């Protein structure tokens, strides 16, 4: 047995197949890297945690207030708990947001191994291809891709290095770095390995919007990653995702700002990467491999947490859930305030309150909406940055209640 391990320790992997930028099928990669492929495939499991996990339950049934808050936006039709990478393409096909509403090709940017399509359409120029595919109707773009998020989206087939491929991230992060005074930032040449263990995720786990009628996926980061910095970006751009069906306010829909919230937390500050918790190392015989079953760390606490925290697994779960419970209660309080404001504006219209009052109330709904959604759409229920999440919700409550006051 020991002799096994001593031998294992010497063996690395064998190149059974040659991988190229066009090898999108993970099964092919699996032939060279069976351990990681086995993990990747387990991402079809569905197991639930108190606030997360990988069962695609319907969030609108769980919290009916969201139907009011999103009135008029596709999210009011269908909004589910997200699950593993292996589902990223099929879940997109199946959501009512796609079935009942026209969506652009932009959606594919983060849900499929889309780079070969960008390259083909752009005649080699991925940025050109990116713009062309984004502008297509979803159905048309969909024909160009076959795989969900997979190996080639995070790895260079030539040497297995982590690398960034997504145009929207390259552009958005460069703008962010420029705002910080760093010119022409390129993660593929300038980021450390530890940084890459988060940046590969930040290609997709971020807030975005579709700029212009060519629907280009854009990350609103040039002023910074904090909620108020993103807010002032949208103010300057004069952008709204949709007009609220019940109040007429121009509002923002926030999506999965995991990278942005994590950036404000103590783990990011301590250099703890997404992959440290979501893809912890596991020992396979004498080898250490990254667990490619990317999932909730609370389903894998021993490996995800105990390497750094010398406390029992049950205690670490309790700590995480205490943070999440606090966030969830405050989030619920903030949603109540926001719904009260929506009701007030509805009642206010059309007679009663002056147009100046209405404008003020709608502005405050916009500010509250952005903040409530920043925490609600973020998928760790505040864990990634506990105090920051609570701070944001405290402001959201203030804006929503001030909106009600503006109408009297």
């Amino acid at each position, binding site marked *: 047995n*020991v002799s096994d391990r001593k031998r294992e320790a010497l063996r690395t992997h064998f190149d059974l197949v040659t991988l190229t930028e066009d090898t999108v099928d993970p099964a092919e990669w699996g032939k060279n890297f069976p351990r990681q492929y086995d993990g990747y495939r387990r991402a079809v499991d569905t197991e639930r945690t108190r606030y997360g996990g990988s069962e695609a339950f319907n969030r609108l049934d769980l919290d009916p207030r969201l139907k009011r808050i999103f009135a008029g936006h596709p999210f009011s039709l269908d909004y589910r708990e997200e699950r593993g990478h292996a589902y990223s393409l099929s879940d997109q096909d199946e959501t009512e947001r796609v079935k009942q509403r026209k969506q652009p090709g932009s959606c594919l940017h983060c849900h499929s191994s889309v780079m070969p399509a960008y390259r083909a359409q752009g005649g080699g120029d991925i940025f050109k291809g990116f713009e062309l595919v984004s502008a297509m109707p979803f159905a048309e773009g969909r024909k160009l891709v076959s795989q969900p998020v997979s190996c080639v989206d995070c790895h260079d087939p030539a040497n297995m290095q982590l690398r960034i491929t997504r145009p929207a991230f390259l552009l958005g992060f460069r703008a962010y770095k420029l705002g910080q005074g760093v010119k022409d930032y390129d993660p593929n040449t300038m980021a450390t390995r530890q940084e890459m263990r988060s940046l590969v995720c930040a290609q997709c786990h971020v807030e975005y919007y579709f700029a212009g009628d060519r629907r280009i996926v854009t990350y609103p980061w040039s002023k910074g990653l904090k909620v108020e910095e993103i807010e002032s970006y949208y103010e300057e751009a004069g952008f709204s995702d949709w007009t609220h069906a019940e109040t007429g306010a121009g509002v923002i829909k926030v999506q999965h700002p995991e990278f942005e919230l994590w950036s404000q937390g103590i783990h990011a500050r*301590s250099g703890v990467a997404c992959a440290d918790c979501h893809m912890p190392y596991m020992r396979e015989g004498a080898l250490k491999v990254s667990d490619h079953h990317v999932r909730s760390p609370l389903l894998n606490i021993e490996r995800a947490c105990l390497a750094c925290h010398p406390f029992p697994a049950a205690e670490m779960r309790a700590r995480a859930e205490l943070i999440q419970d606090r966030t969830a209660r405050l989030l619920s309080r903030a949603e109540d305030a926001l719904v009260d404001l929506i009701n007030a504006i509805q009642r206010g219209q059309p007679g009663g309150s002056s147009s100046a009052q209405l404008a003020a109330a709608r502005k405050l709904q916009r500010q509250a909406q952005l903040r409530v959604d920043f925490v609600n759409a973020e998928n760790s229920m505040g864990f990634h940055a506990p105090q920051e999440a609570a701070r944001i919700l405290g402001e959201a409550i203030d804006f929503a209640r001030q909106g009600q006051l503006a109408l009297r």
Partner: protein
Amino acid sequence: MILGRLHLLAGLAIGVMGGLSLFTFIYAQGFSYFSNDPAACANCHIMREQFDSWLKSSHHARAACNDCHTPHSLIPKYWTKAENGWNHSVKFTLQNFPEPIRIRPVNARKLRENCIACHLELTGDILHGATPGQQADCLHCHSGVGHGPRR
């Protein structure tokens, strides 16, 4: 009758496992437990991480594995070595230990005694201040001395 067979099976199992572990114990230079050479501990790749981190730690010039992890007085020292050596060999053979590896409370206690053994002068006063049977827990603040910070 049935009972008897069970005993036989159990006996067999123990025998086989014992044999295997003994093999491990020898092959993996389990007797290295009785040596003071840190490299000996690293004979198990399982110990590699602690070995590497110890090399970088504040103490590697001052204390080797056994200075911290086994009692300094002779009899307990070899008893601990035998006990741990056997435990670890068995677990290594069966691969049935929880990871990441964590120091067991019993070994953490021996560890603390070793801290104090070397630092008695320095800590005399804070030990004096202590409630009987409740020494200051060195590891509460200094868990990094042997292997650097956990992160």
